[in-house]
């Protein structure tokens, strides 16, 4: 079968080659009458014109008709600002683009070769050149300064009341760590990571005791959230498309991003008319085989009270892994039991155990 296809392809190519050869020979025989190629020159000039009209037409048509399809609803405060900047820049650049595009292709059409016509010797014009240096410079300056202001607001320090959440990337999944009732994330150390202690929680720090793990990112609507982002193995990148949030996760250091969600998951379900709508978080830094599969579900609560209710319904990591009480220094164990909410029956034995981990 493949042999026949192969032969067929060879045959078709051979025929095409023959046609090409014959075409060449015919041209030679016909002589050099048409040698200036003026017919083809005109054809190319018209094609340029058609391309310009067709291309711009398709661009405007598609951009208008499919607007809903390629724009994501925005669900954060700074996202509204950056979206605004995006569309202002779009307006400015599309106007500039369309003008230059039309003018250029019009020139290629209008000034196509004509025998006997002489091109205009026009080598320099300082006024023109200064004009089109200065005008783009001014327009760009305006765009830059509005952009820089937004950038400074976005990257400025988070307020003290911000909800702090840690996101940890690893091949190929995300985990979130919440600070628990004390509102402080405890320390971590990558050398303490093991099969259960996936955050590398340093249990000698009292703040770790009530931290809890979540496989879903829960956010309160209308409150500032500060993401503390890190990675365990290679680079990853937190991408929350609807919130216009993106920040790399880097092993060995924290990166941060602060933002205020403005629409709860329920709001978004109403807005999009899709009862199954869910926010999602993706990875946008190549991280290996499963890069494309690092989906992390995101849920935005309607009110801060809802969010706090969810928080208090979560079990502390230590409660889920009571064995690790052994690693809590003896003087902190009492506090640990209270903060993590470990039930009475499993306490006695553990409380007496010696401290097992002392590294670092």
């Amino acid at each position: 079968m493949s042999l026949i296809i192969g032969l067929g392809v060879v045959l078709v190519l051979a025929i095409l080659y023959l046609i090409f050869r014959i075409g060449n020979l015919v041209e030679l025989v016909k002589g050099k009458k048409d040698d200036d190629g003026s017919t083809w020159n005109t054809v190319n000039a018209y094609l340029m014109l058609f391309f310009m009209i067709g291309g711009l037409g398709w661009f405007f048509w598609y951009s208008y008709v499919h607007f809903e399809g390629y724009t994501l609803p925005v669900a954060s405060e700074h996202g509204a600002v950056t979206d605004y900047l995006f569309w202002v820049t779009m307006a400015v650049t599309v106007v500039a683009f369309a003008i230059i595009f039309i003018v250029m292709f019009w020139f290629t059409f209008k000034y196509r070769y004509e025998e006997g016509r002489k091109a205009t010797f026009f080598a320099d014009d300082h006024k023109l050149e200064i004009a089109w240096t200065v005008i783009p410079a001014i327009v760009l300056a305006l765009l830059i300064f509005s952009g820089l202001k937004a950038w400074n607001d976005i990257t400025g320090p988070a307020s003290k009341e911000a909800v702090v959440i840690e996101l940890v990337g690893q091949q190929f999944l995300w985990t979130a760590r919440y600070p628990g009732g004390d509102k402080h994330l405890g320390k971590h150390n990558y050398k303490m990571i093991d099969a259960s202690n996936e955050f590398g929680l340093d249990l000698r720090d009292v703040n770790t005791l009530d931290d809890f793990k979540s496989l879903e990112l829960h956010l309160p609507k209308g409150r500032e959230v500060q993401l503390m982002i890190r990675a365990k193995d290679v680079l990853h990148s937190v991408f929350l498309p609807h919130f216009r949030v993106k920040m790399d996760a880097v092993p060995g250091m924290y990166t941060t991003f602060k933002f205020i969600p403005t629409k709860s998951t329920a709001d978004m379900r109403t807005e999009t008319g899709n009862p199954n709508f869910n926010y999602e978080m993706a990875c946008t830094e190549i991280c290996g085989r499963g890069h494309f599969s690092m989906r992390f579900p995101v849920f935005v609560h309607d009110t801060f009270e809802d969010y706090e209710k969810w928080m208090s319904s979560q079990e502390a990591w230590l409660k889920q892994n009571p064995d690790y009480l052994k690693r809590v220094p003896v003087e902190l164990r009492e506090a640990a039991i209270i903060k993590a909410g470990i039930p009475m029956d499993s306490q006695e034995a553990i409380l007496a155990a010696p401290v097992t981990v002392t590294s670092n």
Partner: protein
Amino acid sequence: MATIDLHTHTSTEHHDDHGHDHAHHGNFWTNYVFCEDHKVIAKQFLITGMAWALIGGTLSVLFRLQLGFPNADLSWLKPILGGWLTPEGKIDPEFYLALVTMHGTIMVFFVLTAGLSGTFSNFLIPLQIGARDMASGFMNMLSYWFFFISSCIMFISLFISTGPASGGWVIYPPLSALPQAMQGSGLGMTLWLVAMVFFIVSSLLGSINYITTVINMRTKGMSFTKLPLTIWAFFFTAIIGILSFPVLFAAALLLVFDRSFGTSFYLSDIYIGGEALPNQGGSPILFQHLFWFLGHPEVYIVLLPALGITSEIIATNSRKPIFGYKAMVGSMLFIAILSFVVWAHHMFVTGMNPFLGSIFTLLTLIIAVPSAVKIFNYVTTLWKGNIKFTAAMLFSIGLVSFFLTGGITGIFLGNSAIDIQLHDTYFVVAHFHLVMGSASFFGMVAGVYHWFPKMFGRMMNEKLGYVHFWFTFVGVYLVFFPMHYIGIAGFPRRYYSWTNFETFSGFADLNMLVSIAAIMTLAAQFLFLFNFIYSIFRGKQASANPWNSTTLEWTTPRLPGHGNWPGEIPTVYRWPYDYSKPGSKEDFIPQHIPYSETPESNLAHENDLIKLEMSEDAMTVEKDHTH
């Protein structure tokens, strides 16, 4: 006066000797393989570059098959891909990343750096400045053969069982540093690094030669202000290369240390494969700074030669002087300088200090100004021209169109606040493929069509060229324009599939369109390949100056031999863009025609130059007598 006389005398005599010395015929090895002639080396770069372009293009079609037809059964590719196909006939996700990585590496370095600069800097610098050859023919030969070694190593890495490097062409550690992280970070990555070291050596040898040749070996009268814009472009490109490639070398070396000798330049606090690595204190962001310190200038290393070639072709075929010669040189100089201080705009959301983000936003958007000036100048050059659509001209217009379309989206990406959302999405892919990839590729193809007659003494078939152009031009737009929409919708790059996400569930139609267009575009390149090979042997014989062009290379015979000009090297009297000069009978006056011969078309200040010419001519005549 006497000293000047002496000087011209000896230098010309030296040239003459040179011309005669090498008139003898060498054997196959010295003529075509280990050849020191710049024209042969240029062809070696060109043909190697074209081979790489086909490989790079094929790789892109392979991964486009996955993206455009995610459910297709690709078992028929089993004979080629073997174990890289899953049992269901799909491309393996890790091999997908290898394809993306190698496509990027091959296209950026092997095609658009070596294939473009290597070909045209080598071919055109001596011919257009009026030199017998490069400053050092031997170094020039070494430059090609280091590139060849590099090519071999990179090519071999495609066939090893663990696959080639797969961490993206930017090879960010820790992914690229840890073989535990992915297969491709093992031997494949080692070969990538070794190949790039040879590549950098090749590039530096070439650049040193280009710079030396342009500065020292210009023919009489060829002052810097009379250089064609191609030479200016190659000159700036070489300077950028010399200043930036060593930094990539340093980055690669430190990565080698981290990979093989246990250092921690880029590694810190890593827990992978069930164990905590001992490395502490390194920074992956350091690598990104070093990489992009080359990586961004690299964009201009790729682009400037294409812009230079385009300037030449657009002026020639519009039959008009390039508009704003000084502004063109100035904007290239400005771009060359600024290209070194914008690198961190690739790193706005990598955890770099946000204050740096502000600085780099500012610097990045400044670089848009000289780029805009270049576009305006091209368009003005077309205005009131008498445009001949040769294949080269079509591709040059295509370049300007891509440069405009892709350049304008740079204004979004350079603005750090807007970049947050667009970073690492298909918007970026669309942007750089148009402004850098396709534009430079079109510059390269335009250059081949335009200088083919001087390279091989024959013409390429113009009509095949037209078909090639329209399929490629429309094809490239169909491939990359829809990606803007996909990017605005947030689709991340380097994704094997988007079906895991509801947010990225759409655009199956556009992705299919893109893939079909990519296949069509690649197919059209075979027309070019056929035209190229066929025309080398059977093309119509070219005249010495088929495009009625003004620059010096067209004063050489149909097939310039070793030494380029059989007699003396012509003296240059005027700038390279005297097209359609008022008063002149012909619509072009070559650079070697003195003003004294063209009184009918001289401008006022040019008449004043005649006296100067006369005294110089007198010297030449005097010398001829004593000879």
